[in-house]
């Protein structure tokens, strides 16, 4: 079930799961991702006009939220046995969006597109979890979680496909290809945005060190002469209602 890319990336996965701290970090990141994904699907259940899909989405969301709990509990259990707590292990969520690298938007998304997206995302997740399951052989508790989640993901993959064929009988294959294309496009956008972010950061950092020092000197000097404690209120004293200053 694993994709060629995942097979190719197997050494990277091995590197991630072979280290205790990285394993904990990954489990906690998965907890966030599964929980966010569950909330997205929950939202879909509240918005869809299709009664059957409403019920299926709700059950699916319950599963995803439960996966989040499983990952969180396992991560927390491993965290408890981690000896050193000197540095923060994890801050923020490294995988934005409810489905990791996929940025899912529920509002305004028709069911056929959402089902196609979910099918492709679940299939991809199932392939990856299959690899992870094999990589945590030394950790039966974590392995058991992956086994349970894998079973669920396979069912999610199947039901989304069946329902897609129901709601969009003429174009369901096209919808799946479209979802795959959309995933690729979003990945490209994400990489491009990350690259742009790095370039932007470098340029601003350059400005910071080259242009700002005299202004920083002036700002520090002004701050030194400013007294501490209460100041006369500027709040409510500005003249213009139209000014942002």
């Amino acid at each position, binding site marked *: 079930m694993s994709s060629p890319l995942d097979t190719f990336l197997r050494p990277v996965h091995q590197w991630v799961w072979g280290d205790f701290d990285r394993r904990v970090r990954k489990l906690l990141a998965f907890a966030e991702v599964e929980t966010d994904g569950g*909330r997205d699907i*929950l*939202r879909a259940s*509240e918005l869809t006009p299709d*009664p*059957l899909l*409403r*019920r299926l989405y*709700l*059950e*699916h*969301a*319950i*599963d995803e*939220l*439960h996966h989040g*709990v499983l990952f*969180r509990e396992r*991560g*927390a259990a491993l*965290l*408890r046995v981690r000896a050193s707590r*000197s540095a*923060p*292990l*994890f*801050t*923020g969520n490294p995988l934005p969006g409810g489905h990791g690298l996929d940025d899912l938007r529920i*509002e305004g998304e028709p069911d056929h597109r959402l089902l196609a997206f979910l099918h492709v995302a679940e299939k991809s997740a199932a392939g990856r979890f299959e690899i992870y399951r094999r990589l945590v052989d030394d950790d039966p508790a974590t392995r058991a979680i992956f086994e349970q989640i894998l*079973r*669920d993901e396979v*069912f*999610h993959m199947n*039901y989304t496909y069946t329902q897609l064929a129901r709601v969009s009988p003429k174009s369901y294959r096209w919808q799946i290809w479209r979802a795959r294309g959309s995933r690729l496009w979003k990945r490209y956008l994400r990489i491009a945005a990350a690259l742009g*972010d790095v370039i*932007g*950061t470098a340029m*601003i*950092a350059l400005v*910071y*060190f080259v242009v*700002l020092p005299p*202004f*920083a000197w002036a*700002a*520090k000097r002004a701050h030194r002469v400013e007294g*501490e*404690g*209460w*100041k*006369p*209120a*500027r*709040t*409510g004293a500005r003249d213009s*209602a*139209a*000014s*942002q*200053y």
Partner: protein
Amino acid sequence: MKILGISAHYHDSAAALVVDGLPVCAVQEERMSRRKNDAGFPLGAIDWCLDHAKLEPDDLDAVVFYERSMLKFDRILTSALRAFPRSWRSFPRAIKNSLGEKVWVKGVISSQMGVPRSKILFTDHHASHAAAAFLTAPTRRAAILTADGVGEWATLTTGHGTRTDDGTDIRFEREIRFPDSLGLLYSAFTAYLGFTVNEGEYKVMGLAAYGRPTMIGQVNKLIRRTSDGAFVLDPEYFDFQTAAEHSYSPKFVELFGPPRHRYEPLDLESKEGQRFADCAASVQRVLEDMLVDIARELHRSTGLPDLCFGGGVALNGVANARILAESGFERVFVPSAPGDAGCALGAALYADRMYFGNPDREIPDHPFWGPPADGDELARAAREDNHPVESLDAPALLDRVASQLAEGRIVGWMEGACEFGPRALGHRSILAAPHSSETRDRLNRDIKFREEFRPFAPVVPRDVASRYFDLPPGGARLARFMSGVFPVRPEWRPQLAAVTHVDGTARVQVLDRDMAPALHALLEAYGRHTGIPVLLNTSFNVAGEPIVTRALEGYSTFRRCGIDLLVAGSTVVRKRTTSASPTAIPMQERVASWV
């Protein structure tokens, strides 16, 4: 005159519509988008407000943003310059963050809503807080105190307001500026204790009751009183200006010990857990002392009997109760949404009264300005899922719900328009019997999925509130929107165990019949069944999610947790009894009968 107020881009975005001087509707964006503390531009909230009032954007006379975004940018830039070169890591992020959208607010509003730029106005952040607190309160003259993390530059302001037939006047006298901030001090501890900043502050308050303020000396190293009665934070202990990840510095960690990891369970029986509780108790005590002193001075300088308190710090009910008891003010008014969401309403009211000079209007004294819950929508969904559904008239419904509560059932209660603000005040509540600590544990474990140290709040009719709770003069008013924490009378603590916190207090809601008649009648019906007309009242959501808005959102929450009975309008849904929790059975088997 039709004025739309907007708050956005930092946390808890919201929109509020004021027509002819009165609020018509107000809602937080999170209630529409279902993303907790949604900070995005509140397009969903704006759309709903305009739809609700049957207005088009062209019909608006003004759109008011709750703060001056370029002034805020000025603060961010100046702070980075002051911290040069230590701010090199946070500077690019702050600049990208601000230049990405936040400083172009006028253009964003204009393009998103299609209103001309000339109609877009701005207020000062703390003026919005002040207006939200003062102009919605039933008082004509009052001292005004606002305190939060930071607005543009101000973090705390004092002043006073007057409402007369000739017009409204809000005057600010003094302010304390960034980086000296009570809100940021508390938020640094929130982060240190492993909770999410701008969301977990009330957990720190709840945790404080389990600790002893043994670290006041250490906290006082972080915050020093100035000779004029203000305070300054020691920048060595904070990283507001340099680090992007968290707001406390390595020196802070040296002083208080290792921080708590956000995923680490908080074990209050352990030495480490007790240290965290003591930290919380210490910063809570210092915050209270500071606020009481500032409020006392404000009372002395204004000589007014009423105080209107706004800003995120006003969500601290323990501090509010001490202000009421010790500052000399006879009444303390805290709005239902004192935080940034409430600024949307505050900005619109401020513009109406102060910019346009419109006459003062008495604002209805309730928090119910959001979208309604539709019982028919609930009935339809529940029938599709084969859950028992009934439609009952009011007396039968109240009797049914009261008897179910008396039998220990947990009820999801949705009625009318949802609350504006972070608290469930009777229209989107989970209700339960308040008598047993097992109910509290069940709610935390099976329904809210949250930490076991978190307390639950009671709701009680005003006329009997003093029988159960030790309310000082003015306490009932402060408790109207659940803004004060007061002692449960010792003789009632065993019968109110689920709502009595470990220190014998409760964040009680004192309910007037006029504010929420159906809940008031339910309390009376429950009193007839059990002899105690008090219910446990907690927000209708599970951990990490916003309070439900529509009936269908209530229904999906009901399906996922241990709520036994769900009520929306006249519709009552009972959960089918199952022997196992949904996740104990694979989805394949759960859905096999109907796919």
